């Protein structure tokens, strides 16, 4: 009669996706923010295509980072506010599993969505189409890593006043390596060179973070729940 981890994971993912899709407007917000921030740069600097192409890896990545962080705040906040986070914590399932399920589901509807929208942004920033695959791969790895880092920040700041500002303050310095590697991979892809070095580092960072961050995020949530 017990619910094993696989069944629990599936149920948790369904719960998160169900809740996300009941609020489609909230799903779109990070994506729109991504587009808006991207638009700010040509307006602030210059619409000249060669200049845009040079700035594009940086603009793309900073915009993606900020857009992902924007929604990270909501990872635990909704459940914390209506008391359902406690119910999850007391479900008898491991808290680590719950945190992993919520974070992954959150990435699916924010980070992965950003990756899918990135060709639009890429076109707006004069990124050549053959650079798109590397661009999207690096964004996928980067946003996944960021989701894990964000989960730690979210776990630490749930229920704090101005928690979302503090969350960004905590997560952004930790996200600088992935920004460096990801933007570089995109840059090299645009220049037609091999992005393998940067991508390997990015992938290693992603694996490292994905294995350790869930532990830290779970510990953070336990501190919050007390």
């Amino acid at each position, binding site marked *: 009669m017990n619910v094993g981890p696989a069944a629990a994971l599936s149920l948790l993912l369904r719960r998160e996706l169900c809740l996300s899709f009941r609020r489609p407007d909230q799903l779109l917000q990070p994506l729109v923010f991504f587009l808006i921030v991207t638009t700010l740069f040509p307006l602030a600097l210059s619409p000249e295509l060669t200049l845009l192409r040079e700035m594009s890896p940086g603009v793309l990545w900073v915009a993606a980072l900020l857009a992902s962080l924007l929604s990270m705040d909501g990872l635990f906040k909704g459940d914390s506010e209506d008391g359902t986070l406690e119910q999850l914590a007391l479900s008898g399932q491991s808290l680590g599993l719950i945190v992993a399920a919520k974070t992954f589901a959150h990435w699916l509807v924010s980070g992965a969505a950003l990756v899918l929208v990135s060709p639009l942004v890429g076109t707006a920033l004069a990124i050549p189409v053959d650079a798109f695959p590397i661009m999207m791969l690096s964004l996928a790895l980067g946003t996944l890593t960021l989701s894990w880092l964000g989960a730690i920040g979210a776990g*630490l700041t749930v229920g704090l006043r101005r*928690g979302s500002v503090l969350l960004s*303050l905590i997560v952004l*310095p*930790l996200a*600088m390596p992935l920004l*460096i590697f990801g933007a570089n991979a995109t840059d090299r892809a645009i220049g037609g060179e091999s992005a393998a070095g940067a991508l390997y580092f990015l992938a290693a960072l992603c694996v490292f973070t994905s294995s350790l961050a869930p532990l830290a995020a779970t510990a953070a949530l336990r*501190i919050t729940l007390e």
Partner: protein
Amino acid sequence: MWTWFYRLASPPYVYRVAAAFAPWLLGIAGALIAYGLVDGLAFAPRDYQQGDAFRIIYVHVPASSLSVMAYTLMAVAAAIGLIWRIKVAYAVAAAVAPIGASFTLLTLVTGSLWGKPMWGTYWAWDPRLTSELILLFLYFGVMSLRAAFEDPNRGDRAAALLAIVGVVNVPIIHFSVVWWNSLHQGATILKLGKPQIDATMALPLYAMLLGFLLFFGGVLCLRLRGEVLNRERQASWVREAVKS
């Protein structure tokens, strides 16, 4: 064997011991720093490449070493607090944070002062300075997080977890910044290169390093007493200690 460890965890004991150590640490530190500054700033020979500007390394290099050592100490104290649930460890972590942040700030300022004659500008995204800047952000994160909690116990634990997450990231951040910098090496030499150290220059440098370390220890003892008093303010021993 572990009795000394648990004795160290007793707040009144730490309060007394810190008071005993502080004047010695600060006194010896003062002597070492005075020697280091005088010898380094006035007497050590000029570097043939960098002229007199390099003298700032007598402050800059020890400060940067201390900034990283302090963060590591903060993270170790945080881990001790979380794993063994020893309250004094949280007091240590809280006491270290602003001192470490100050050393980081000192590193940045002295680095920037060094940079002006070297690069012609106060800031040029040198890898070491950039890493120190990110370290400063990490310090701010830990201090802000602790301050944001109304319940100081939870604040301590949250800040402790963040300190540990940060310390794991420090090597990664440093590596990625060095990598990033090597890609964008322009014509000008951006790295604050240490000039060739020979004996006359090395001695004041080590003196400054040790002096800063002892100074750090002394200030830590003083701040630690304050943190311990604050955290234990309900306890009876505090009333006795404050009366005397």
